């Protein structure tokens, strides 16, 4: 243990690791920028290639849920900072739960559309795009949930608070990001309706 102290120093140099998270988000933004600009190129191609059906109403409620979850996570982060670990855990669990609810609502949104006959496989690919956007976003939410789990795990262990806070911070950065990402996608779709 003692001879690995140099290792320990590096491991506590957390700045580069946080930066990695930011860079990952940049590449993720580019991914969605690619998808949405694909949407624009496609719909600019001719008549009948626009999003001519209303989005499922549930997307509005899911937006509220994901925004709420950002607040609960921020609450949890603040509590961890004030060393109130019980509240931190509660906040994390609520956020985790809201994330699951969000996924459920998105999937329900798909089922609303399929029941109306607005299918994934569609000669109007703008509709397929909506399915792809939400699917790609759900994958990001799942990644966010996994990061929340690591934060939860460390909140139950007796770890130094530096580590605990670092994991909370990483989780917050990413979770707020997927939150804003969904708002971007939703607004983008609303504007292109």
């Amino acid at each position, binding site marked *: 243990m003692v001879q690995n102290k140099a*290792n*320990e*120093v590096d491991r*506590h140099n957390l700045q580069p*690791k946080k930066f990695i998270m930011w860079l990952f988000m940049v590449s993720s933004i*580019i991914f969605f920028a*690619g*998808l949405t600009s*694909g949407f624009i190129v496609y719909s600019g191609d001719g008549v009948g290639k626009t999003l001519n059906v209303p989005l499922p109403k549930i997307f509005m409620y899911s937006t509220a849920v994901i925004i709420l979850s950002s607040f609960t996570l921020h609450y949890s982060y603040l509590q961890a900072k004030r060393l109130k670990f019980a509240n931190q855990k509660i906040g994390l669990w609520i956020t985790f739960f809201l994330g699951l609810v969000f996924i459920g609502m998105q999937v329900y949104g798909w089922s609303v559309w399929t029941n109306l006959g607005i299918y994934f496989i569609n000669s109007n690919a703008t509709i397929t795009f909506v399915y792809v956007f939400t699917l790609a976003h759900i994958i990001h939410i799942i990644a966010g949930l996994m990061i929340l789990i690591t934060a939860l795990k460390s909140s139950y262990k007796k770890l130094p608070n530096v*580590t605990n806070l670092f994991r909370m911070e990483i989780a917050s950065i990413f979770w707020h990001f997927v939150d804003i990402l969904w708002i971007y996608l939703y607004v983008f779709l609303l504007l292109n309706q």
Partner: protein
Amino acid sequence: MSTIAIPNSSAVHHDDHSHEHHKETFLTKYVFSQDHKMIAKQFLITGIIMGVIAMGLSILFRIQLAYPDKSFPLLEVLLGKFAPEGRLDPNFYLSLVTIHGTIMVFFVLTAGLSGTFSNLLIPLQLGARDMASPFMNMLSYWFFFTASAIMLSTFFIESGPAGAGWTIYPPLSALPKAMPGSGLGMTLWLVSMVLFVASSLMGGINYVSTILNMRTKGMDLWKMPLTIWAFFLTAILGILSFPVLVAGIVLLIFDRSFGTSFYLSDIYIGGQALANEGGSPILWEHLFWFLGHPEVYIVIMPAMGIASEVMSVNSRKPIFGYHAMVYSLIGITVLSFVVWGHHMFVTGMNPFLGGVFMITTLIIAVPSAVKTFNWLATLWRGNIRFTPAMLFAIGLVSFFISGGLTGIWLGNAALDINLHDTYFVVAHFHLVMGSAAIFGMLAGIYHWFPKMFGRMMNPKLGYLHFWLTFISAYLVFFPMHFMGLDGVPRRYYAFTEFESMQKWLSVNVFITWAAILGAVAQVAFLFNFFYSIFFGEKSTQNPWQANTLEWTTPVERLHGNWPGEIPTVYRWAYDYSKPGHDADFITQITPLSETMSSNLPHDFEGNEEAERIQERWNIDHKSVDKREEVK
């Protein structure tokens, strides 16, 4: 990890020999290594193997192009049903072209080049113990390895590898039934590329984070060697463009496997209309080339950085125009995102838009010319040492000029109507990004081989390798310009089928023999490389008398790089042949106080105290040194 949370301040020597007692097994040292130097070697050797394979593929299709009517029974023995009766199957020919391009562009010149030298040099030249996340770095290599394995495995499946060209335009790539190369081979191509992009992103993110956060004391951005600038901007390009390719591939996978219509419309197979409607293959071209064009700069920029460093060291002169070199790299990085349309001039694009893309494309000539002139000016009146690395770096400049000039023709929207999809394009990109980038990579291998393996490569074999490769590359690619001007299209299986192209057959025979000569020349390199790893002459610590930090590490290559404290940096990397200094190089870790006889006013960067001290020293030594006083 939980017992010692915050390092004890009494442990002063915690940096020393921290890893000597660390248990390393064969697995953690050579296979799942997290040491950046080992990962660099893994990338390099995998890249070399992939390069040899892709070169072999090119020889196969060159034989077909030279002797379309001849039968080679050996081919049937080797390839089985891909070469019935000793002649290449037309579908397999297309697969060969596709996989040759894919492997060369992505697996050799992206992963093999960036992966090797970014991993090796970023921590070493910046003074870091390792990457920002060594674990992610290891993951990056193993994703790359898996992608390589999957790509090669397509040679062993019934329908053969993907055959739609390395740009995999739909509908060929989107309809599994279109041709044999659109089947399982295409699916695996997509899987392999997704893994490859994941690998590249993990690598690139790591490089950027390391460069921005983990430089040693004194190493500000403007003291970084040009190699690091090149790797940095390359990594940024990758982060900003590869995700778009993934977006395109995701949509393509949905079209292929789930029946959506992003790229497909109005298609009949065997007289039967497909259900897909409303899509446009042009959408794929936009998404693909938004990556595809930056990709060619991802390929060439690390090579440029390596060449700049190697040429400065071996000319014993500072690089000419260091700042201009950096700004031109930045210029290329920015411009590379706004030129993708020049690959699509003939897709029915609005001529006005074509004009815009033409202008942005031609503007890239400016930073490229800045770099070229700076290299030539660096060579000018230098004490040039023609090491093999130096020869390859000069070779890069040669290819970059001769291949870059034709870019001005191709970037022209009107001329492109004639030239697109001909051998003129093939000649252009093989010279400007193929040969130039591979020469940059080879320059890097010869130059940093002592750093990687502690031994030297044989220079005589290096010279043989250089001259044969250099000559054969020109013999292969230069005649292609004339074929292209005559309108000979690329990717065709046999030109004997067309009356007007038959006259080019003799040229094709010539090119094929030149290519075989080039391939044989690589044996000299491969032997030299693998032999020298084990039996090469032992290297000294700083065999090239270079300034950069990697040559201050011990030859033994420790995990953690420096046995003691990481050195501090006091100056830029290019103080070669500085007037007034006794040696012709001053390492970056030499403080200005030790080089009083050669300091110049601008070295102090406005530090008045230091300037005063220098002034006093100059007065004291006036009888010896009659240089201008520091003001």
